[in-house]
């Protein structure tokens, strides 16, 4: 009986550890982006050109990767209750960067035409390149 009991306890312990571990991984996933060294650092013009020249190649290179894009702010929008920074390029397409909730405060201080570095996960290209979970890299702002 005691053996059975401790076996059950052991199972519960393992199960709890698995759950906690899963929870930690799930939670830290987003904040990881902030700490992750970007796989690529590119200018807004370069990444757009890569997507417009050959979308398939650019998809393979950038999708799912944490990347850092350098560019000037075209506008900041508040559509759909999200803060979105759009970086300008030399065409009428841009880089759409959906800002992570933890970085929302920083958005208010941004100005049009300001040069910034934005780190996020690349999701692909429609008419603009789309980045989600974006963090603004202040340390690099005035390069």
């Amino acid at each position, binding site marked *: 009986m005691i053996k059975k009991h401790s076996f059950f306890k052991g199972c519960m312990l393992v199960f709890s550890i698995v759950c906690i571990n899963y929870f930690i991984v*799930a939670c830290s*996933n987003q904040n990881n982006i902030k700490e992750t060294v970007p796989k690529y650092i590119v200018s807004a013009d370069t990444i757009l050109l890569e997507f417009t020249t050959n979308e398939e190649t650019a*998809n393979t290179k950038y*999708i*799912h990767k944490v990347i850092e894009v350098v560019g000037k702010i075209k506008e900041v*929008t508040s*559509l*759909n209750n*999200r803060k*979105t920074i*759009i970086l300008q390029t030399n*065409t*009428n397409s841009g880089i*759409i960067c*959906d800002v992570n909730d933890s970085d929302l405060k920083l958005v208010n201080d941004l100005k049009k035409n300001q040069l910034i570095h934005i780190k996020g996960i690349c*999701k*692909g290209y*429609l*008419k*603009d390149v*789309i980045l*989600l979970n974006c963090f603004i890299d202040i340390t690099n702002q005035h390069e």
Partner: protein
Amino acid sequence: MNKLRLLLLLLFLKLGTVFGQQFIARQGQVTFFSYATVEDIEAKNNQVLSILDFDKKEIAASMLMRAFVFKKNLMHEHFNESYIESDLYPKATFEGFLLEGLENAGPQVQFIKGKVTIHGITKEIEIKTTIQKTNDRYTMSGEFNLTVKDFNIKIPPILSNNIAKVVLVKFNFQYEPYENE
């Protein structure tokens, strides 16, 4: 008389800029809801692209399947890897036309007929939408249902209670004049 002509000309030009122009939404919102016995799933895409041409009464929309945001990472993973297979079918698209012309005043209900393509499968669909004009911008919103099975999306029997057979899709687009370069 000359003044009247000038006025008419100006009016014509003004109408020309309103009707002879395309409108674009780069940050349209599409949300889908799956209500099932085991769990409810909701996912939002806030970067849907859509172009509207009132002259031709045409409308087109395109979205990246990977850009849908779920409450749980695991749902996102299953959606992209097992069901939608985003690596093979990265985009969902819609191409259609407005059944009636647009009047200038107030919010109005319109029907859009067109083809939706998801997971490589194209289906005809008719969507009821409300269009509203404010200044030189248009807002278009509405909802419709999609049957999961229609798009060759295979749900394993063990998970059939987790995912609805019919998914509710809501959309909201804010269009601004599109300056094509």
